[in-house]
């Protein structure tokens, strides 16, 4: 039976090839240790240049790691952001999951729930390097499941040829729009909630979760939603589904001022050059903008061998300790260190100053509210419901009252 022997021959050939690869690509008697790192790329930007950009950044991590582990081979695997969890789930079923996962700290919680990542030990070296907000974002059931290494703050990006003086308050932002400057905002909850901070609505949203002041009318939430609705009326203020679209529009010169994150800002800088300026998002008259930073972190894969786990921990330590974090910050101007023991040299650049202010003065001014806001938006269903309500509000489908009722009811459903 020729086909039978063909199948056997194919298997033999594959075995020989694998053996040859093994022998050819490892040292004589000792197999090379390999560390697999998974990371995500946006599905709408999954291309060679984006992959190269991210991998160049990971190379910096790897260089720091290889200073103490020079013979270790580090393999990076890129996934489409919307498919990464599914892919890692499938890989883990075959014990082929990665040793390290680079993801948002908030997303690693769901990986942990599905046993795709393991927790770090709660011993001091890990927990003492983060402040309470970051620790809170990285902890699940009192276990540290993510080791944050970078903060990507939310800021404002604008074309300095058009916008001479960036707005300091959201009232000034509206006036700027009225003066003819084209303004872009994202309708995505995490990317537009900064306006809730500027209008003073964050404490009220937080109290919806804590059930405090339940009898009091949530006037500030209504004020926030009204501001969003009015902004949508203005000719020069446009809402887009996410910040990626906003950055595309700004680089295409279709917008002049947008909300963005520091990573997008660095990408836009390559295209716009000196025309791009970065500053903090506008505050309110009395309250700060509730800027939502992305906290990127390492998660420990669940399938590692003992050697690979030790290497993974070493990799994370190399990149989260104070020295490594300072090195990272000096080499990348678009992120802040997650380690609280690293000082940020504010005066070195305007960009770094804006990032520092966004994180330390805007985001961290809501220390008490953060856990509640995360809880409010933590489930994917809640997040999608809020997203839908905001999109419908800014497109005129929902009235302010209807949108307000949806937000209040979501909190009630959670409490029940």
């Amino acid at each position, binding site marked *: 039976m020729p*086909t039978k022997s063909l199948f056997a021959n194919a298997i033999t050939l594959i075995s020989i090839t*694998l053996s040859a690869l093994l022998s050819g690509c490892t040292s004589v008697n000792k197999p090379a240790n390999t*560390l697999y790192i998974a990371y995500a790329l946006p599905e709408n930007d999954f291309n060679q240049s984006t992959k190269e950009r991210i991998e160049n950044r990971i190379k910096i991590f790897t260089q720091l790691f290889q200073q103490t582990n020079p013979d270790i081979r580090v393999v990076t695997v890129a*996934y489409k952001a919307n*498919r990464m969890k599914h892919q890692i789930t499938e890989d883990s079923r075959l*014990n*082929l999951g990665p040793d390290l996962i680079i993801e948002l700290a908030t997303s690693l919680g769901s990986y942990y729930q599905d046993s795709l990542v393991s927790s770090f030990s709660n011993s001091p070296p890990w927990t003492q390097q983060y402040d309470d907000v970051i620790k809170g974002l990285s902890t699940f059931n009192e276990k540290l499941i993510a080791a944050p290494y970078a903060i990507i703050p939310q800021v404002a990006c604008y074309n300095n040829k058009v916008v001479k003086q960036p707005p300091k308050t959201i009232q000034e932002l509206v006036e700027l729009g009225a003066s003819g400057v084209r303004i872009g905002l994202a309708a995505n909850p995490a990317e537009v909630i900064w306006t809730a901070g500027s209008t003073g609505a964050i404490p009220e949203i937080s109290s919806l979760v804590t059930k405090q002041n339940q009898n009091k009318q949530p006037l500030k939430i209504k004020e926030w939603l009204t501001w969003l609705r009015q902004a949508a009326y203005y000719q020069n203020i446009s809402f887009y589904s996410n910040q990626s679209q906003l950055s595309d529009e700004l680089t295409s010169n279709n917008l002049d001022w947008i909300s963005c994150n520091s990573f997008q800002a660095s990408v836009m800088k390559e295209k716009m050059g000196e025309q791009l300026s970065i500053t903090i998002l506008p505050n309110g008259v009395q309250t700060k903008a509730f800027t939502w930073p992305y906290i990127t972190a390492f998660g420990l894969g669940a*399938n590692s061998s003992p050697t690979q786990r030790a290497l993974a921990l070493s990799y994370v330590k190399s990149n989260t300790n104070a020295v490594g974090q300072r090195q990272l910050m000096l080499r990348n101007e678009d992120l802040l260190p997650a380690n609280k023991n690293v000082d940020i040299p504010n005066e070195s650049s305007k960009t770094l100053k804006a990032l520092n202010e966004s994180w330390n003065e805007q985001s961290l001014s809501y220390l008490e509210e953060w856990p509640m806001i995360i809880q409010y938006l933590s489930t994917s269903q809640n997040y999608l419901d809020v997203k839908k309500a905001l999109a419908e509000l800014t497109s005129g489908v929902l009235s302010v009252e209807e949108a307000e009722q949806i937000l209040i009811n979501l909190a009630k459903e959670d409490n029940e």
Partner: protein
Amino acid sequence: MNNLLFEISSWTGYFDRAAVTWQLVLIACALIADIYIWKKLKAKNASLLTYQAVGPLALLGISILLGMASIPTGIAIRFAGIWVLWNLLLWIELRLIQRNPKDRKARWLRRLARPSIIIWALLYCIDRLNSLSSIALINVGTLLEAQLLVGGLFSSLIGLYLILIASGPIAFMLSWLLKTGLKTSDQSRNALEIVIRYLIIGFGLLAVAFQAGLNTAALLTISAGLSVGIGFGVKDIFFNFISGIWLLFEGSIQPGEVLMIKGEPCRVNKLGLRATQLSRDRDDAELRIPNQTFFTQDAESYTAGENFRRNEVVVGAAYHHEPKQVIALLEQVASQHPKVLRNPSPKAFAIDFADSSINYKVKYSVGNPLQALSVSSDLRQDIWTAFQNNGIGIPFPQRQVYPMEWPPSQQSSQGSQLHRENHASTDGQDQA
């Protein structure tokens, strides 16, 4: 290319994981055991299904049981699943071939279903060991100023394979639809099928090239350069190619037609782009004749305008038989043969007053030119029988042979001289 090799070689790092290594050992043991069991069962003449099922099902069963005991067997289960599927398709294919060696379903299983399983399994493995989308972005080189990415290259190759195997059935279907719609002949349908097939392949190749991101301007430039190169270097092939296209469009030679090649009737089987494929009637030999032959040399066709062949049988009858009776009989015999066409009807003629007979020729037509020889044989037999039944003789020259000695002996020489003298005196008496 180095990046790709690095990615592939990096997969060996998974051997560091005991859960992976042990499953690979389990699979290897299963494969070795399968070969051993297969030989044993073959010696006992076990059924095909048995020795195809035992290996993969045993691996699948063991893996599932171990999996229930929380022992990692994900790789082994998936490998066994693919193995089962492969052997199942193989078994179906072999069964179909046993029934009919030219079974179309078996051909599709071999050409499409089984390669699909291999490709799917390969992609699945790559996706598990790395990420398909990530591997797809690896650059393996540059062609015509375009970066060749693994993903584009792989999908181009798959596309090319699918175009090649699917172009046949699609062309057949389209030509059949056109034939039904336009009510054309079978021969036209065959020609149309070939033209459509090459059009699909041609446009398919272009689509694949564009999909792979090849530079169109560079493609055109290279085509122009190639044209010059072809003109000098491979002009014969190119001439054959052009001749093939011309023949297809002109329709002067079509599949099914019968041509005389070196005095032998041959049927055109396939009109290829380089050569025409014919089968010779005499010995069923397959001939491949370059298309340009039909442009540069005379080609005798029996079926250029019509599908039948005109043939004849010559026979002699004795002088004392009435020619009209013989002609009627010959026409009747020819008309009664089932393979002789009624229209045009058979015709007999008296063609010669020969030495010992009046010669007749009966002309007739057969529907299938390649049957002309067997029909003429049948007719000769029928004519002999008919002549026998009607008392018509077929004369033939008779010869008498006298043995002679040389040099003649004395006695026989005198005898013969005497005989000649007697003969001469007799002749003289007659003359007197």
